[in-house]
Every structure is written in structure tokens, then in C-alpha cells.
């Protein structure tokens, strides 16, 4: 475990945020900005969210309070996202986002050692259905 991180921290919920009710207007604005097809941009009973609308939810705080101080004080870069999709988001839905620290690991490349912090958002709707699991991969360069 790099950075002397307490393993018990992994998987522990550090934030919970509730969004909604989702409006058709916000789904349409999101999809139009991506040039998405009409099933994501035409208001009506069949409207569902674009599959990546779920990544627009970020919770109240992005990092757990017990993230090692050596990381908290440094600037991170968005290194990537992994999204597993479940039930589509529809107008009127309420979406709960639970945040956990999923992984912390080091990699050494040509530019030196990098630390990756993976923050997982688990999204469910008001029926308890899993909407998406979003892993946010943040990269820290250089010395600890």
C-alpha cells in the first residue's frame, strides 16, 4: 500500500449526495452539447439521459478527509474515467451518489513516479436500481 494509507480507508463511504428530481431540460442541454441523436434530445415520454450524463454528478466533496496530507496539498490531473452503466436516468428521477476511495497505487514511467487515486461514485435511483458506477482516476506527479 503506497503512501502508508490505512487499508481500511478503501471502500469506506466518505460522501453521500442526492440530486434531483432530474429535469428534461438538463438532460437535453447535456445531450445537445455532445451533438447526440434525438432519443437524447427530444423531450417526451421516451426521453432518457445520454449514457455519460452520470459523470456530471460529483458529490459534495471529491476526496475523503483522511487522504494522506502529502496528496491533499498537491494538484491532481484527471487521468481517466471508467463507467459501468446500469438503469438509464429519466426525467423525474432522484439520483443518490455514494463516494468511496476505491484504490491508491503507484506507477513508474518515463517521467518518474506517479500516484493514482481512484475515487468511485456509485449511483442509484429512487427505486434502488444501480444507475452507474463511475471510477474517477486522478494522477499526481513527482515526489511525495
Amino acid at each position: 500500500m503506497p503512501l502508508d494509507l490505512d487499508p481500511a480507508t478503501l471502500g469506506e463511504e466518505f460522501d453521500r449526495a442526492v440530486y434531483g428530481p432530474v429535469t428534461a431540460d438538463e438532460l437535453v442541454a447535456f445531450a445537445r452539447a455532445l451533438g447526440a441523436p434525438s432519443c437524447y434530445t427530444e423531450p417526451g415520454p421516451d426521453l432518457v439521459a445520454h449514457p455519460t450524463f452520470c459523470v456530471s454528478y460529483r458529490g459534495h466533496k471529491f476526496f475523503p478527509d483522511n487522504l494522506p496530507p502529502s496528496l491533499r496539498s498537491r494538484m491532481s490531473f484527471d487521468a481517466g474515467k471508467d463507467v459501468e452503466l446500469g438503469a438509464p436516468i429519466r426525467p423525474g428521477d432522484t439520483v443518490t451518489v455514494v463516494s468511496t476511495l476505491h484504490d491508491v497505487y503507484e506507477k513508474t514511467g518515463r517521467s518518474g513516479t506517479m500516484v493514482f487515486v481512484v475515487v468511485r461514485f456509485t449511483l442509484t435511483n429512487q427505486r434502488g436500481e444501480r444507475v452507474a458506477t463511475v471510477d474517477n482516476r486522478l494522477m499526481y506527479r513527482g515526489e511525495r
Partner: protein
Amino acid sequence: MSVRFEDVVEGDDLPAQELFLARDQVRAYARATDMYFPRFTDDEGARREGLPGMIAPGNMSLGLLAGLVEAWAGPGALCRLGTTFRGLVLPDRTIRLRGTVTEKDEARRTIEVDVWLESDEGERLVLGTATARLD
């Protein structure tokens, strides 16, 4: 018209998409996602953050690549998408979205594809893999 599972062959290329990424489109995405920050909206603000100019949010690239897969596989077909952001995606330029089928899972009727977003010069700025379920 979406592709059918039976018609897909490993090694197939997805129909490539080429688009001019306008500044206003990036701003519209930033506004729609409540990320109306200088780095995504104006050059001066972005330069103050050490960037060469305003950039497209990584999540926007993710969304465009999702669109590439669904334009081929059909709306609702996307099950999973993972991306790595390797380079800055700058507006006011032409970008290309491309993909290749890497695997077919007969039992699950799913397709694995490599996807990427490249600059007009062919530099791969965003790499990813996706899973789509086909009829």
C-alpha cells in the same frame, strides 16, 4: 440502422466520425455540467492556470466516444466505457473519433471495442475501451 451482432467481425472498424470542436460547443458542455470554469470557457483564464488555452473537459471526450459507439451499436447499447486522458483536447480544431472491434462474446452477445479520440494530426489524445450489447 444499428449493426447486428451476427454481422460483426473482430477487427472491424467503427465508422469514424470527424468533427470541428467549436469553442461554443465546449462552453455549452461546461455549462450543462456545471463546470463553467475558466479552463473550459476562455483562453485567458486557462492560460492563468498554465494551460495553452481553453480545453475540452475530459468528460466531454468520454461523451463523444460514447456517441461514437452508440452511433454504430444503437442507442442504449453501451454497457461500459473506460477512458484514459493522455493529451489536451483543444477547441477550434478538427478531431476524429475512431474505434475497432477487439472481441465478440457469443454467450453474452457483447462486443469489446478499442476507441480513441485523435487530433487532426493523428495524435491519440484519449484512449479507451468499451463494451456494447447488440441484438
